[in-house]
């Protein structure tokens, strides 16, 4: 359940942005979460509600944009799209793959007041 720690980190990033950019409330948060970022979106939503309660983002809408995954195929020597972690390479059917895209969790933007 490291999603809780991720939410605390998110809250702290929003608080810093509030200081730097002069706002006092966040009404919407858009995140981009990669398919291979190791984040369970439902756990993230739960954590977000708990962690932001009473904060500048209390009641804010959480929008999660899920990003597609890609992987490096050692057999094709190429980056290929990958639907899930244990799927074979869509080009050669090989299984020697290492995710190289959709591994990030990013804050895209905030709607603030």
């Amino acid at each position: 359940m490291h999603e809780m720690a991720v939410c605390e980190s998110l809250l702290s990033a929003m608080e810093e942005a509030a200081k730097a950019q002069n706002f006092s409330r966040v009404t919407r948060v858009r995140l981009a979460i990669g398919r291979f970022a190791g984040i369970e979106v439902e756990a993230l939503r739960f954590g977000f509600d708990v962690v932001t309660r009473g904060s500048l983002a209390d009641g804010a809408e959480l929008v999660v944009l899920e990003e597609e995954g890609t992987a490096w195929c050692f057999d094709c020597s190429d980056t290929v799209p990958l639907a899930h972690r244990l799927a074979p390479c869509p080009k050669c059917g090989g299984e020697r793959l290492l995710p190289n895209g959709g591994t990030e969790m990013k804050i895209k933007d905030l709607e603030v007041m």
Partner: protein
Amino acid sequence: MCTVCGCSGDGATISEAHGPSHSHAHGHDHPHTHTHADGTSHSHAHGHGHDHAHGHDHDHAHHGHDPHHHDDHHHPAPDAGTLDYGAGPARAHAPGLTQARMVEIETSILAKNDDYAGRNRTRLDAAGVLALNLLSGPGAGKTTLLVETLKALSGRLPCAVIEGDQQTDNDAARIRAVGTPAVQINTGKGCHLDAHMVGHALEKLPLPPGGVLFIENVGNLVCPAAFDLGETKRVTLISVAEGEDKPLKYPDIFEGADLVLITKADLAPHVDADMATLEANIRRINPTADILTTSSRGEIGLARWIAWLEAARAVRLNDLASAREAEASALRAAAGGAR
């Protein structure tokens, strides 16, 4: 993240490197181990309500008056003139004049952790230390491997250990018993170590120059994978008794590993472990990791792991030396050019 400096977080506590001073009084270890024990109960008692209610004011007051806070680099001072209530097109100060606007962020949610990890890395580079982040599920044998490894390296390489567990000082005590300095981080409710906790632990740990720092993460096959600690190499352990398909079920922890250690190999015949399938599954998730089979108790032993460790240390020290030689050359060239 910790109660050492009062910075916001989940109530982690960190011991001293040499453990409690009252070594005879085992039952009293916990309250005497460190001065932050009541910090833990403080943060539990108040929880999020406390953090939120006090917000930035609390932080500022703390940093402004804290006499024992030596570690400014971990807590950059807030920008001067932080809250300019007159600025911006949509300042929400006058009721009725509020309007929403968009603020682009475009940074990693874990940017702060990554920043602390970068600082740890700089510090470890400067000290010439090989830092290994040891990850596994609970009971894969991390502490036993460490104890046996430290015995084998005793007198040859300077070592230090950071132990991560939710509760108890037990693991650090096991490490100290073989004569190696160890700092225990208790994460409280936390399911992983983060770079900020490790940064504070480094403050309490005499870093051995040219030595090896082992960071034993919280036993957990999921969460620690996402948090860079500033380590040089990641080592994931899996014992033969855990089942061959663990790498497929919990890929993240294997995916980032530089080395996967298969532990408790002496038990393999007793648990019907299919070693070939286990290795194939590790390769499936991480085609580039080194894989070594070890046993802290049986004949297979730790020789290959220790050889890997010594090779990694040699590469690390050579890399650091080359980088510094290049810097020195650049400085000499600059000095020559200025004449």
